[in-house]
């Protein structure tokens, strides 16, 4: 739980900044290069990189390299991990209940 809370601190800390919230909003819609992001704001490439690093550390954004470009994307599951865990449980439960049915049947 400590790890979880630390992670939430990172998330909320990273979203306390208006520019970072805006960056997240943009990359959630579409993968964008750092250059494209920098041109949207009145700030430098380096400043955007710094913001991205913070979002990356909070596991909200991932960065990859495509040739000379650095591309930022919304991290998989950044905003819906809860439902992902639950989907994992769904498979587990469906197969559990299948086995329960068979077990009850076998018992006669």
């Amino acid at each position, binding site marked *: 739980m400590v790890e979880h809370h630390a992670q939430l601190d990172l998330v909320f800390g990273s979203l306390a900044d208006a520019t970072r919230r805006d960056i997240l909003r943009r990359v959630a819609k579409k993968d964008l290069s750092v250059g494209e992001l920098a041109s949207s704001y009145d700030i430098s490439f380096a400043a955007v990189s710094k913001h991205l690093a913070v979002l990356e550390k909070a596991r909200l954004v991932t960065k990859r390299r495509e040739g000379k470009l650095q591309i930022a994307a919304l991290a998989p599951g950044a905003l819906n991990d809860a439902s992902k865990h*639950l989907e994992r449980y769904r498979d587990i439960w469906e197969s559990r*209940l299948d086995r329960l049915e068979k077990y009850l049947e076998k018992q006669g």
Partner: protein
Amino acid sequence: MSTDTKNELVIVRILNAPRAKVWRACSEVEGLRQWWGMPSDATMLSPTVDFRVGGIFHFQVERPLGQGLWIKCVYKEIVEGKRLVMEQNYSDAQGRELNTADRPVSTITLTLEDLGEKTKLTVVHTDMASRAVPIHLFKQGWGESLDRLVESLKRG
């Protein structure tokens, strides 16, 4: 119980057995061993059941989910024959809790209803903690701007 449906999984199954029999399968180690294992194709290893409020249902998870990983369920509420609430934790062989962001603590509620010779079993699995951004925490703890952010992200 959570009011955020995103954090709650509900599964209903009609079982072809009377309620007392289903209850035994859900509460006794002989029955649980036959069906409660995880992941889907794994047999349950070394299960122990101390069936009382505060008692523990402990078993080892097979690979590929994680070698040496155990599940520790703590019974929170028992209504004989009808309702069972437990808190599911990831743990080690000694029962020390090893919940992490990727393997969070969760709550399982089983409800059994009589349907004559059949039984309606309802499973509610509630995620208590999840990794990055639980939407409800956004909404509770943060201002309108974050609400709007979440909404806009959901719209994509």
